[in-house]
Protein backbone atom coordinates (compact mmCIF):
# COMPACT_ATOMS: atom_id res chain seq x y z
CA UNK A 1 0.00 0.00 0.00
CA UNK A 2 1.30 3.46 -0.83
CA UNK A 3 2.47 5.75 1.94
CA UNK A 4 2.54 8.83 -0.27
CA UNK A 5 3.39 12.11 1.41
CA UNK A 6 0.20 14.03 1.94
CA UNK A 7 -0.61 17.70 2.47
CA UNK A 8 -3.79 16.76 4.38
CA UNK A 9 -2.33 17.52 7.84
CA UNK A 10 -1.66 21.11 6.72
CA UNK A 11 -5.22 21.73 5.51
CA UNK A 12 -6.69 19.84 8.43
CA UNK A 13 -4.58 21.94 10.83
CA UNK A 14 -5.98 25.15 9.30
CA UNK A 15 -9.48 23.63 9.37
CA UNK A 16 -9.00 22.81 13.03
CA UNK A 17 -7.80 26.24 14.20
CA UNK A 18 -10.37 27.87 11.92
CA UNK A 19 -13.04 25.82 13.68
CA UNK A 20 -11.87 27.01 17.08
CA UNK A 21 -12.05 30.63 15.89
CA UNK A 22 -15.46 30.10 14.30
CA UNK A 23 -16.82 28.45 17.44
CA UNK A 24 -15.39 30.77 20.09
CA UNK A 25 -14.45 34.14 18.61
CA UNK A 26 -17.09 34.63 15.92
CA UNK A 27 -20.15 34.35 18.24
CA UNK A 28 -18.57 36.76 20.75
CA UNK A 29 -17.70 39.17 17.98
CA UNK A 30 -21.19 38.94 16.47
CA UNK A 31 -22.76 39.56 19.86
CA UNK A 32 -20.60 42.62 20.55
CA UNK A 33 -20.66 44.22 17.12
CA UNK A 34 -23.95 42.87 15.80
CA UNK A 35 -26.10 43.43 18.90
CA UNK A 36 -24.50 45.06 21.91
CA UNK A 37 -22.96 48.10 20.18
CA UNK A 38 -25.74 48.84 17.61
CA UNK A 39 -28.46 48.50 20.29
CA UNK A 40 -26.58 50.77 22.64
CA UNK A 41 -25.99 48.16 25.36
CA UNK A 42 -22.33 49.14 25.23
CA UNK A 43 -21.93 52.88 24.72
CA UNK A 44 -19.11 53.20 22.20
CA UNK A 45 -18.88 55.94 19.61
CA UNK A 46 -18.26 54.98 15.96
CA UNK A 47 -15.15 57.20 16.02
CA UNK A 48 -13.71 55.13 18.88
CA UNK A 49 -14.28 51.88 16.93
CA UNK A 50 -12.72 53.48 13.85
CA UNK A 51 -9.66 54.36 15.91
CA UNK A 52 -9.49 50.82 17.38
CA UNK A 53 -9.50 49.23 13.93
CA UNK A 54 -6.34 51.16 13.08
CA UNK A 55 -4.40 49.45 15.88
CA UNK A 56 -1.97 46.71 14.68
CA UNK A 57 -3.14 44.24 17.37
CA UNK A 58 -6.78 44.74 16.34
CA UNK A 59 -5.76 44.24 12.71
CA UNK A 60 -4.13 40.96 13.72
CA UNK A 61 -7.30 40.00 15.61
CA UNK A 62 -9.46 40.81 12.59
CA UNK A 63 -7.14 38.82 10.34
CA UNK A 64 -7.46 35.76 12.60
CA UNK A 65 -11.21 36.31 12.91
CA UNK A 66 -11.81 36.54 9.18
CA UNK A 67 -9.14 34.42 7.48
CA UNK A 68 -8.94 31.27 9.61
CA UNK A 69 -12.68 30.37 9.47
CA UNK A 70 -12.37 30.50 5.66
CA UNK A 71 -10.17 27.39 5.86
CA UNK A 72 -12.68 25.77 8.16
CA UNK A 73 -15.36 26.43 5.54
CA UNK A 74 -13.13 25.28 2.66
CA UNK A 75 -12.35 21.92 4.25
CA UNK A 76 -15.99 21.24 5.15
CA UNK A 77 -17.25 22.39 1.77
CA UNK A 78 -14.75 20.14 0.00
CA UNK A 79 -15.77 17.07 2.01
CA UNK A 80 -19.50 17.82 1.68
CA UNK A 81 -19.14 17.90 -2.10
CA UNK A 82 -17.15 14.65 -2.03
CA UNK A 83 -19.68 12.97 0.26
CA UNK A 84 -22.67 13.88 -1.90
CA UNK A 85 -21.05 11.89 -4.68
CA UNK A 86 -18.62 14.19 -6.48
CA UNK A 87 -15.80 11.87 -5.43
CA UNK A 88 -14.38 11.69 -8.94
CA UNK A 89 -13.84 15.46 -8.93
CA UNK A 90 -11.88 15.53 -5.69
CA UNK A 91 -8.81 17.28 -7.12
CA UNK A 92 -10.62 20.26 -8.73
CA UNK A 93 -12.93 20.53 -5.69
CA UNK A 94 -9.92 20.77 -3.38
CA UNK A 95 -8.31 23.44 -5.57
CA UNK A 96 -11.57 25.41 -5.73
CA UNK A 97 -12.26 25.21 -1.98
CA UNK A 98 -8.79 25.93 -0.62
CA UNK A 99 -8.15 28.36 -3.49
CA UNK A 100 -11.19 30.39 -2.43
CA UNK A 101 -9.91 30.48 1.15
CA UNK A 102 -6.50 31.65 -0.05
CA UNK A 103 -8.12 34.38 -2.17
CA UNK A 104 -10.17 35.40 0.88
CA UNK A 105 -7.00 35.53 2.97
CA UNK A 106 -5.25 37.76 0.45
CA UNK A 107 -8.31 40.05 0.23
CA UNK A 108 -8.45 40.26 4.03
CA UNK A 109 -4.77 41.22 4.18
CA UNK A 110 -5.28 43.79 1.44
CA UNK A 111 -8.24 45.42 3.21
CA UNK A 112 -6.48 45.44 6.57
CA UNK A 113 -3.09 46.71 5.36
CA UNK A 114 -4.07 49.27 2.76
Amino acid at each position, binding site marked *: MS*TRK*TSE*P*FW*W*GLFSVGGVVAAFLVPVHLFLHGLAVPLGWIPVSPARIQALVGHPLIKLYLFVLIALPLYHWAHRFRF*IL*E*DVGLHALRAPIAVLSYGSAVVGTVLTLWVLLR
Partner: protein
Amino acid sequence: MSEETITLEVTRYRPGHDREPRAQTFSVPYRKDWVVLDALNHIKDRTDGTLSYRWSCRMGVCGSCGMMVNGVPKLTCAAFLRDYHPGPIRVEPLANFPVVRDLVISLDDFMEKLRRVKPWIIREVEKPVAEGEYLQTPAQLDLYKQFSMCINCMLCYAACPVYGLDPVFIGPAAIALGYRYNLDSRDEGYRIRQPILTEAVGVWDCTFVGECSVVCPKGVDPAAAIQRSKVAGAKEWFMSMLLPWGGR
Protein backbone atom coordinates in the same frame (compact mmCIF):
# COMPACT_ATOMS: atom_id res chain seq x y z
CA MET B 1 -56.39 -18.78 17.73
CA SER B 2 -53.59 -18.81 15.20
CA GLU B 3 -50.16 -17.56 16.26
CA GLU B 4 -49.23 -13.99 15.36
CA THR B 5 -46.55 -13.76 12.67
CA ILE B 6 -44.22 -11.10 11.35
CA THR B 7 -42.82 -10.78 7.83
CA LEU B 8 -39.12 -10.74 7.02
CA GLU B 9 -37.86 -9.57 3.62
CA VAL B 10 -34.53 -11.32 3.33
CA THR B 11 -31.98 -10.65 0.60
CA ARG B 12 -31.07 -13.76 -1.38
CA TYR B 13 -28.13 -13.78 -3.77
CA ARG B 14 -25.84 -16.39 -5.26
CA PRO B 15 -23.13 -14.63 -7.30
CA GLY B 16 -22.60 -16.50 -10.54
CA HIS B 17 -26.15 -17.92 -10.50
CA ASP B 18 -28.39 -14.93 -9.81
CA ARG B 19 -28.13 -11.85 -11.95
CA GLU B 20 -28.75 -9.59 -8.98
CA PRO B 21 -29.80 -9.80 -5.31
CA ARG B 22 -33.53 -10.15 -4.70
CA ALA B 23 -35.72 -10.00 -1.60
CA GLN B 24 -37.49 -13.17 -0.49
CA THR B 25 -40.41 -12.87 1.91
CA PHE B 26 -40.72 -15.20 4.90
CA SER B 27 -43.37 -15.30 7.57
CA VAL B 28 -42.12 -16.24 11.05
CA PRO B 29 -43.81 -16.49 14.45
CA TYR B 30 -43.81 -13.16 16.25
CA ARG B 31 -42.36 -13.58 19.73
CA LYS B 32 -41.51 -10.63 21.94
CA ASP B 33 -38.30 -12.23 23.16
CA TRP B 34 -37.06 -13.13 19.67
CA VAL B 35 -34.35 -11.22 17.86
CA VAL B 36 -33.91 -11.06 14.08
CA LEU B 37 -31.26 -13.80 14.33
CA ASP B 38 -33.82 -16.11 16.00
CA ALA B 39 -36.16 -15.44 13.08
CA LEU B 40 -33.39 -16.26 10.56
CA ASN B 41 -32.60 -19.47 12.45
CA HIS B 42 -36.29 -20.34 12.38
CA ILE B 43 -36.35 -19.85 8.60
CA LYS B 44 -33.22 -21.96 8.12
CA ASP B 45 -34.51 -24.76 10.38
CA ARG B 46 -38.15 -24.88 9.21
CA THR B 47 -38.59 -23.14 5.86
CA ASP B 48 -35.45 -22.90 3.73
CA GLY B 49 -32.22 -24.60 4.73
CA THR B 50 -30.32 -22.92 1.91
CA LEU B 51 -30.47 -19.45 3.53
CA SER B 52 -26.91 -18.41 4.33
CA TYR B 53 -25.75 -16.01 7.04
CA ARG B 54 -23.07 -15.83 9.72
CA TRP B 55 -23.62 -16.12 13.43
CA SER B 56 -22.00 -17.70 16.42
CA CYS B 57 -22.44 -16.49 19.98
CA ARG B 58 -25.91 -14.87 19.74
CA MET B 59 -24.97 -12.62 22.66
CA GLY B 60 -23.21 -9.59 21.18
CA VAL B 61 -19.68 -10.83 21.70
CA CYS B 62 -18.49 -12.60 18.55
CA GLY B 63 -19.38 -9.83 16.10
CA SER B 64 -20.34 -12.17 13.25
CA CYS B 65 -24.11 -11.58 12.84
CA GLY B 66 -23.97 -7.98 11.59
CA MET B 67 -26.56 -7.24 8.88
CA MET B 68 -28.62 -4.32 7.64
CA VAL B 69 -31.97 -4.35 9.46
CA ASN B 70 -34.39 -1.91 7.85
CA GLY B 71 -31.37 -0.21 6.32
CA VAL B 72 -29.43 0.24 9.56
CA PRO B 73 -26.31 -1.81 10.45
CA LYS B 74 -27.21 -3.99 13.45
CA LEU B 75 -26.07 -7.08 15.27
CA THR B 76 -29.06 -9.27 14.48
CA CYS B 77 -28.66 -11.01 17.86
CA ALA B 78 -29.47 -7.68 19.51
CA ALA B 79 -32.23 -6.49 17.16
CA PHE B 80 -35.54 -7.49 18.78
CA LEU B 81 -38.53 -8.24 16.56
CA ARG B 82 -40.70 -6.22 18.97
CA ASP B 83 -38.78 -3.07 18.05
CA TYR B 84 -39.84 -3.54 14.41
CA HIS B 85 -43.44 -4.66 15.05
CA PRO B 86 -45.66 -4.94 13.07
CA GLY B 87 -43.08 -5.24 10.30
CA PRO B 88 -42.18 -6.11 7.66
CA ILE B 89 -38.50 -6.26 8.59
CA ARG B 90 -35.97 -5.88 5.79
CA VAL B 91 -32.81 -7.95 6.36
CA GLU B 92 -29.90 -7.33 3.97
CA PRO B 93 -26.18 -8.07 3.96
CA LEU B 94 -23.93 -5.40 5.52
CA ALA B 95 -23.64 -2.45 3.13
CA ASN B 96 -20.36 -1.50 1.45
CA PHE B 97 -19.03 -5.09 1.29
CA PRO B 98 -19.01 -7.64 -1.55
CA VAL B 99 -21.59 -10.39 -1.00
CA VAL B 100 -20.43 -14.01 -0.95
CA ARG B 101 -23.93 -15.44 -0.73
CA ASP B 102 -27.29 -14.25 0.65
CA LEU B 103 -26.43 -12.36 3.86
CA VAL B 104 -22.77 -13.41 3.97
CA ILE B 105 -20.25 -10.71 3.07
CA SER B 106 -16.56 -10.97 2.26
CA LEU B 107 -14.26 -10.13 5.16
CA ASP B 108 -11.05 -10.04 3.10
CA ASP B 109 -10.72 -6.26 2.80
CA PHE B 110 -11.31 -5.65 6.50
CA MET B 111 -8.91 -8.42 7.52
CA GLU B 112 -6.16 -6.93 5.35
CA LYS B 113 -6.74 -3.49 6.91
CA LEU B 114 -6.81 -4.88 10.41
CA ARG B 115 -3.43 -6.54 9.87
CA ARG B 116 -2.05 -3.36 8.31
CA VAL B 117 -2.52 -1.25 11.48
CA LYS B 118 -0.69 -3.89 13.57
CA PRO B 119 -3.25 -4.19 16.37
CA TRP B 120 -0.99 -5.96 18.82
CA ILE B 121 1.61 -4.94 21.39
CA ILE B 122 4.92 -4.14 19.74
CA ARG B 123 8.01 -4.15 21.99
CA GLU B 124 11.48 -3.04 21.03
CA VAL B 125 12.87 -5.72 23.33
CA GLU B 126 10.59 -8.38 24.74
CA LYS B 127 10.87 -8.75 28.51
CA PRO B 128 11.95 -12.25 29.60
CA VAL B 129 9.02 -14.24 30.99
CA ALA B 130 10.92 -14.69 34.28
CA GLU B 131 10.66 -10.94 34.93
CA GLY B 132 6.89 -11.23 35.14
CA GLU B 133 3.98 -9.36 33.63
CA TYR B 134 3.85 -5.87 32.19
CA LEU B 135 2.08 -3.98 34.95
CA GLN B 136 -0.42 -1.24 34.23
CA THR B 137 -2.27 1.21 36.49
CA PRO B 138 -6.08 1.55 36.30
CA ALA B 139 -5.55 5.02 34.81
CA GLN B 140 -3.33 3.58 32.06
CA LEU B 141 -6.00 0.96 31.35
CA ASP B 142 -8.76 3.59 31.20
CA LEU B 143 -6.90 5.46 28.46
CA TYR B 144 -7.52 2.75 25.85
CA LYS B 145 -10.16 0.50 27.39
CA GLN B 146 -13.22 1.67 25.40
CA PHE B 147 -11.35 1.16 22.11
CA SER B 148 -10.42 -2.38 23.16
CA MET B 149 -14.13 -3.28 23.32
CA CYS B 150 -14.28 -3.53 19.50
CA ILE B 151 -15.53 -6.97 18.35
CA ASN B 152 -14.68 -6.49 14.65
CA CYS B 153 -18.35 -6.71 13.66
CA MET B 154 -17.81 -4.15 10.86
CA LEU B 155 -21.09 -2.33 11.45
CA CYS B 156 -19.04 0.88 11.41
CA TYR B 157 -17.79 0.09 7.89
CA ALA B 158 -21.37 -0.49 6.73
CA ALA B 159 -22.35 2.88 8.23
CA CYS B 160 -19.38 4.82 6.82
CA PRO B 161 -20.24 6.74 3.63
CA VAL B 162 -16.54 7.43 3.02
CA TYR B 163 -15.75 3.70 2.96
CA GLY B 164 -18.82 3.19 0.75
CA LEU B 165 -17.56 5.74 -1.78
CA ASP B 166 -13.94 4.62 -1.79
CA PRO B 167 -12.92 1.42 0.02
CA VAL B 168 -9.22 2.36 0.07
CA PHE B 169 -10.03 4.17 3.35
CA ILE B 170 -8.58 2.15 6.24
CA GLY B 171 -11.86 2.74 8.06
CA PRO B 172 -13.22 3.23 11.57
CA ALA B 173 -12.61 -0.08 13.41
CA ALA B 174 -9.07 -0.63 12.12
CA ILE B 175 -8.07 2.95 13.00
CA ALA B 176 -9.70 2.68 16.44
CA LEU B 177 -7.80 -0.55 17.11
CA GLY B 178 -4.50 0.90 15.92
CA TYR B 179 -5.14 3.91 18.15
CA ARG B 180 -5.98 1.57 21.03
CA TYR B 181 -2.46 0.06 20.89
CA ASN B 182 -0.88 3.51 20.49
CA LEU B 183 -2.49 4.42 23.83
CA ASP B 184 -1.33 1.24 25.59
CA SER B 185 1.45 1.90 28.12
CA ARG B 186 2.97 -1.52 27.36
CA ASP B 187 3.31 -0.74 23.67
CA GLU B 188 6.38 0.71 21.93
CA GLY B 189 5.06 0.56 18.36
CA TYR B 190 3.83 4.16 17.96
CA ARG B 191 6.58 5.06 15.46
CA ILE B 192 5.67 2.06 13.33
CA ARG B 193 1.89 2.32 13.62
CA GLN B 194 1.30 6.08 13.51
CA PRO B 195 2.64 6.57 9.94
CA ILE B 196 0.19 3.89 8.75
CA LEU B 197 -2.75 5.55 10.53
CA THR B 198 -1.85 9.01 9.24
CA GLU B 199 -1.14 8.18 5.60
CA ALA B 200 -3.46 9.65 2.96
CA VAL B 201 -5.92 6.71 3.05
CA GLY B 202 -5.81 6.67 6.85
CA VAL B 203 -7.39 9.23 9.15
CA TRP B 204 -7.34 12.05 6.57
CA ASP B 205 -9.94 10.33 4.38
CA CYS B 206 -12.49 10.62 7.20
CA THR B 207 -15.02 13.41 6.61
CA PHE B 208 -16.36 13.50 10.21
CA VAL B 209 -19.73 11.95 9.46
CA GLY B 210 -19.63 10.17 12.83
CA GLU B 211 -22.06 7.35 11.96
CA CYS B 212 -19.40 4.80 12.95
CA SER B 213 -19.72 5.80 16.60
CA VAL B 214 -23.53 5.90 16.35
CA VAL B 215 -23.92 2.31 15.12
CA CYS B 216 -21.20 0.70 17.29
CA PRO B 217 -22.93 -1.94 19.45
CA LYS B 218 -20.09 -1.91 21.99
CA GLY B 219 -19.96 1.80 22.78
CA VAL B 220 -16.62 2.31 21.03
CA ASP B 221 -16.11 5.80 19.60
CA PRO B 222 -14.06 5.26 16.43
CA ALA B 223 -14.77 8.83 15.30
CA ALA B 224 -12.96 10.11 18.39
CA ALA B 225 -10.00 7.79 17.71
CA ILE B 226 -9.81 9.16 14.18
CA GLN B 227 -10.08 12.84 15.17
CA ARG B 228 -7.50 12.44 17.96
CA SER B 229 -5.14 10.69 15.56
CA LYS B 230 -5.60 13.64 13.21
CA VAL B 231 -4.55 16.06 15.97
CA ALA B 232 -1.43 13.98 16.68
CA GLY B 233 -0.71 13.58 12.95
CA ALA B 234 -1.13 17.31 12.25
CA LYS B 235 1.18 18.22 15.16
CA GLU B 236 3.82 15.81 13.88
CA TRP B 237 3.45 17.14 10.34
CA PHE B 238 3.92 20.78 11.42
CA MET B 239 6.85 19.80 13.66
CA SER B 240 8.54 17.96 10.80
CA MET B 241 8.10 21.09 8.64
CA LEU B 242 9.43 23.44 11.31
CA LEU B 243 12.19 21.14 12.50
CA PRO B 244 13.18 19.07 9.47
CA TRP B 245 15.97 17.42 11.46
CA GLY B 246 13.54 16.43 14.21
CA GLY B 247 11.14 14.59 11.93
CA ARG B 248 10.74 10.85 11.99
